[in-house]
């Protein structure tokens, strides 16, 4: 029983490994979990920024877009190797995050939310406007599959494992950050920024650092997404997407890293169930979200933890 409590995540890793070899073998089915993986990277990055750092962003999809379009344009239009394109995307995202981070993160709450929303919209409108590079509203096509040193991930199962390998790295590094002095510093800034400064914490620097890290994760997710889809369009990168990521965060449980993982999985798998209700889907999604927010403020992860504690107490 104790082993289950400590190593539950191993079971999940096992599930991820086994899934495409068993009931998830079709491209469509592996695709669902590829999307889940990509959104996990987005949600986890945002959790570091919002759940730990305390900085609201309603524009995270901007960096998702930068990664996706940098990879897409470089590989589809200029034949640049995907690894280099992906790294370039991460670099551009990091630089933009650094440049906008300082002034924007100094803002509080709603102002910060508005500024990040504005940033997302700026990127979104630029993607549509700069048609020559990006394909505009009709999108960018013919993005090749991801390849490393000549080895191409055309096979959907191999790409699935590659994506989840990266997801694992993102989750592991996020947990490492969170459990470290850096993570403690973020929590201090989030709790009481003024008090935190009295301990030598240069809060602007730390807020910008975590902003850059989240941007890099999002860019990575964007690159993996564009190589998977082969075709990307601006609509995937608008404020609605940023809002979806935010929702995943709160659905799963903000400030827990595992919560957003759950939230991303839930939000990506839920449509598979509710799509049957067609026109009612949107309403049902909205209602589920409201219910979770009112009755489960700690998110799904919080509920699972409580459930786990309850079961373990009974088992004794």
């Amino acid at each position: 029983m104790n082993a289950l409590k400590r190593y539950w995540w191993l079971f999940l890793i096992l599930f991820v490994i086994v899934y495409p070899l068993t009931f998830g073998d079709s491209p469509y089915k592996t695709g669902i979990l590829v999307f889940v993986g990509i959104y996990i990277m987005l949600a986890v990055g945002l959790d570091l920024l919002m759940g730990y750092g305390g900085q609201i962003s309603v524009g995270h999809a901007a960096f998702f877009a930068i990664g996706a379009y940098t990879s897409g344009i470089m590989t589809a239009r200029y034949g640049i190797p995907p690894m280099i394109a992906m790294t370039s995307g991460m670099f551009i995202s990091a630089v933009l995050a650094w440049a906008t981070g300082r002034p924007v993160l100094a803002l509080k709450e709603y102002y910060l939310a508005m500024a990040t929303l504005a940033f997302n919209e700026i990127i979104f409108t630029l993607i549509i406007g700069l048609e020559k590079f990006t394909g505009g509203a009709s999108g960018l096509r013919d993005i090749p599959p991801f390849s490393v040193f000549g080895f191409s991930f055309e096979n959907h199962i191999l790409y699935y494992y590659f994506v989840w390998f990266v997801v694992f790295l993102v989750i592991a590094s996020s947990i490492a950050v969170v459990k470290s002095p850096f993570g403690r510093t973020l929590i201090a800034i989030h709790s009481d920024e003024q008090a935190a400064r009295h301990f030598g914490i240069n809060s602007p620097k730390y807020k910008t650092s975590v902003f850059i890290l989240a941007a890099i994760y999002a860019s990575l997710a964007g690159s993996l997404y564009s190589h998977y889809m082969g075709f990307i369009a601006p609509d995937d990168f608008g404020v609605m997407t940023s809002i979806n990521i935010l929702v995943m965060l709160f659905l799963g449980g903000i400030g827990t890293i595992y919560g957003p993982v759950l939230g991303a999985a839930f939000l990506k798998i839920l449509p598979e169930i509710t799509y049957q209700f067609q026109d009612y889907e949107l309403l049902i999604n909205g209602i589920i979200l409201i219910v979770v927010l009112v009755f489960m403020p700690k998110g799904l992860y919080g509920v699972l933890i409580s459930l786990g504690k309850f079961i373990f107490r009974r088992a004794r």
Partner: protein
Amino acid sequence: MMVQNSDILNIENITKTFEGVRALENVDFRVKKGQIKALIGPNGAGKTTLLNVTSGLLKPDNGSIYMNGQKISGMTPDKIAFLGISRTFQLVRLFTINNATVLDNVLLGAHKQLKPDIIGTIFRRGSLNKKEREVKDKALEILSFVGLEGKEKFLPGALSFGNQRLLELARSLMTEPQMLLLDEPASGLNDAEVDGFIKLLLNIRDRGITILLVEHNMKVVMNIADDIVVLDFGKKLAEGTPSQICANQQVIEAYLGTYGSAQECV
């Protein structure tokens, strides 16, 4: 009683105005290294404002503050912290987000030493883990020193108010300060806690740390302060040893008499 010739803190002619109200007006005094100096006065006299200016939360309109000869007024709080000043707050400000524990709060005091950064956190785990262990040992020792042994895993909210104040103190001690600014650290403590607290502050002073404390509890002040500064309406009313202050008619009228604290005067 250790008296050193050097001044650690020079408060020179500080003036601070808020929307037309003079919170501080030409406040001027020195704090000697190794001493315990108390800042007393009625509510609203500007004591906390003075601490806020010293710790970097506010910029003075006029005047300067020097620490060990270096000008610190106008610097941001984090830079001042690196010079060796640490403070506590009137209303306890502990870190509570994401279930931060008592231990986490104290560990945060080590930020100056650890100076964490993202690259090191993700890529250089080995040396990080070693430092973490050292820091954790020290944190536990400090918790023990202030009397919070065994409570590392508690959430700050679960502590009694007196213990929360001790936690704030422990967190500040962790920064290895040269000087502590304490804002009413004894308020809300009962008599037994106050006695323990007096001993604790004297212990801290014996470790070589200078203390500037704002306090209303005259028992604490009279028992530990080497020197006292009295503020009233933002101005310095008097400065001197406890016996001098007790004998000062103006001080008694403005503060000691009315507050019934004169009985603590020896």
